[in-house]
């Protein structure tokens, strides 16, 4: 899936998000939209590793694999799906590869 055509994403600026971990879920309030998102892992972890950089699913998976006990190749498909969902919610912006 990784390749020159893979889309890249930029996360919402950190100062636009209020993040409150609860039990199994994490609340993310987005200041710009006024919407509260209720998310489960690995969404908070994805947003945390992305910082302000434009990254592809493969790059995000590699960052996550470096920090958590998972295989980057296995994680890539899951991460790609989550990134598209987060883009649809407005928490990420899809940018040109």
């Amino acid at each position, binding site marked *: 899936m990784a390749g020159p055509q893979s889309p890249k994403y930029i996360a919402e600026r950190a100062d636009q998000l209020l993040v409150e971990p609860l039990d199994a879920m994490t*609340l993310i309030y987005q200041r710009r939209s*006024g919407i509260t998102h209720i998310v489960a892992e690995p969404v908070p972890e994805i947003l945390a590793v992305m910082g302000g950089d434009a990254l592809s699913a493969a790059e995000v998976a590699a960052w996550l694999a470096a920090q958590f006990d998972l295989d980057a190749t296995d994680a890539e498909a899951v991460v790609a799906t989550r990134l598209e969902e987060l883009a649809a919610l407005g928490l990420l912006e899809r940018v040109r590869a």
Partner: protein
Amino acid sequence: MSVHEFRVKVGPVAFRICSAWKRPIDQLADLYRDYPTPEIPDYSVRLEARSPFRRFIRPSITLGGDYMLPDAAPLPLAQGLLAAEMAMNLQVALGWRRHLLLHASAVEKDGKALIMTGASGSGKSTLAAMLGHKGWRFMGDEFVLIDLVNGEAAPFPRMISLKNEAIGAMQASALDGRFGPLMIGTPKGDIRHLVPARDAIAQIAVSATPALLLFPSFGYEPAVREIGASEVFMRLTQASTNYVALGEAGFTTLTRFIKTVPARAIDYRDGIEAAALVNQLWDELA
């Protein structure tokens, strides 16, 4: 034409109620006679005749006010007190922005608040009314108002709206209680209002620190269950009429509440079981 007027302040909220008829205003003035009278109302409520004729012939009330539901059905004059109470609640539900509103009941002891929320029929209102006559201060059975800065719960002790079986139960247990007229066959069943106990009115401006949140369910074997923080969050956003409107202030107020106030679900079959569970959990957690 609204020619009769009554003003009352309930907790932090000041109302002006105007009516084309004298009787609902007289009933309100009697029931709320010990409450403060505000100079400047936050909200106006109007009880108006559907048409000039309907002021006299089969009198029928149309509600007006700052915030209204467009398709609210008119009520007969005999239910004027209910109409006024419904309209007062509606102003707060739709318009209030100074606190986070939770659709809940609350009672207070030692400066700490027990807050109870749940669907209609869960018994939160009757429990608060009952506890209000058993050593607790009644703070309200419709809305709990959470301060956006310090998280304290402000009281909103309106008339207690007793429905159906709760009317007889409270008439038996609140022997010194002051009741309004019995209204039969309203859209909510039989309704009778009970004036909150003296201490609830005397301390109408005194807030309390939220210390325990309960989700009561009436009609089941007595039981206590823990509820996860994310489920509490989802239930309380559903129980709040202004969470979305408050934006970031609503988010920070509600998340602070959830992280600091222990929450349990309780099942009970009667008031004695409920009071025992409440006292046990209060001793353990509050």
